């Protein structure tokens, strides 16, 4: 965090001449500051910071449903952020941390559910329905086949001809 602030100060000094650029930098800097207002975590490198941020967006708070743990102020979301931070520092990978949370709070806790026996319909359903729709549309749009005229045999043709000629004679 400190490094980020220093970087912003240096950049603003260099770019002081352009007000618009300064505003842009402030706009970029402020959200990061606001987000870290409750938790102040220090990471060893950028990769860890990024992993923490991704996971905080990706994990769902079990208490305040429809909020991720970055957005939620529920005590449990705070605990989860703390655990994500601790596990990240321990060098755990993103998948390992998600599995750790699922083990405790169930599939509910991740916004990207794993593909397994209970979630295959969720993953494949939309694609299948889209495909089905496509098939229906294609079939409906295809022009009706032209060879709809009834086929008559030579025998029927002769009979037809004789009927027609018979009709003509009396008149």
């Amino acid at each position, binding site marked *: 965090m400190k490094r980020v602030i220093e970087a912003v100060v240096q950049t603003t000094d260099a770019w002081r001449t352009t007000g618009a650029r300064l505003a842009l930098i402030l706009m970029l800097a402020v959200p990061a500051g606001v987000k870290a207002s409750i938790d102040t975590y220090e990471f060893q490198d950028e990769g860890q910071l990024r992993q923490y941020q991704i996971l905080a967006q990706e994990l769902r708070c*079990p*208490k305040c*449903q429809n909020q991720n743990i970055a957005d939620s102020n*529920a*005590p*449990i979301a705070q*605990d989860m952020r703390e*655990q994500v931070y601790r596990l990240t520092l321990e060098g755990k990978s993103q998948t390992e941390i998600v599995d750790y949370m*699922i*083990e*405790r*709070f*169930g*599939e*509910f806790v991740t916004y990207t559910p794993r593909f397994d026996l209970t979630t295959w319909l969720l993953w494949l359903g939309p694609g299948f329905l889209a495909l089905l729709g496509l098939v229906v549309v294609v079939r409906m749009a295809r022009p009706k086949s032209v060879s709809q005229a009834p086929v008559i045999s030579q025998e029927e043709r002769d009979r037809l001809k004789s009927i027609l000629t018979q009709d003509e004679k009396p008149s």
Partner: protein
Amino acid sequence: MNRLLLLIPLLLVIALLLVLGSGLGNDPTKLDSARIGKAFPAFSLQSLQNADKTFTEQDLKGDLFLLNVWATWCPSCKTEHPYLLKIAAENQVVVVGHNYKDDRVAAIKWLQQLGDPYRFTLFDPKGQLGFDLGVYGAPETYLIDAQGVVRYRHVGVVDEKVWKTELLPVIERLRAGKA
């Protein structure tokens, strides 16, 4: 044949309505515990009343336990407390307390004032066991069988309805399975 095919969309709609309709009555805030059917997580926690006494998951084996997660900061815990006293008094199951992210002095005072339904109470001030168990708020109540496997979780207040329609049937089933 073609007439029957015309019924397919109708059948699909009915199936969809049934699926969606069955979900209407569900309470979305009640989540299935990920721990059901799995061993109770390992822990080592002090007794609430006695810092020298330590409990582990081994203390939750050999009998059917009703583990109640509670705290003095939780108003609903106060609501369900009389009913827990009743369950404990009727000796239907061993009731154990899990004091969750709480203050020791306040918690001891609470039990002295309201009565203590718990055979023993785990003191979990940081909520670590709670986290491992998947507790996301208090009160929560778990059923643990004699092998130390989590069998049921109820989120929210335990009252007569919950006891009779949810917990007791599971307890009876587990007892019958054991006999």
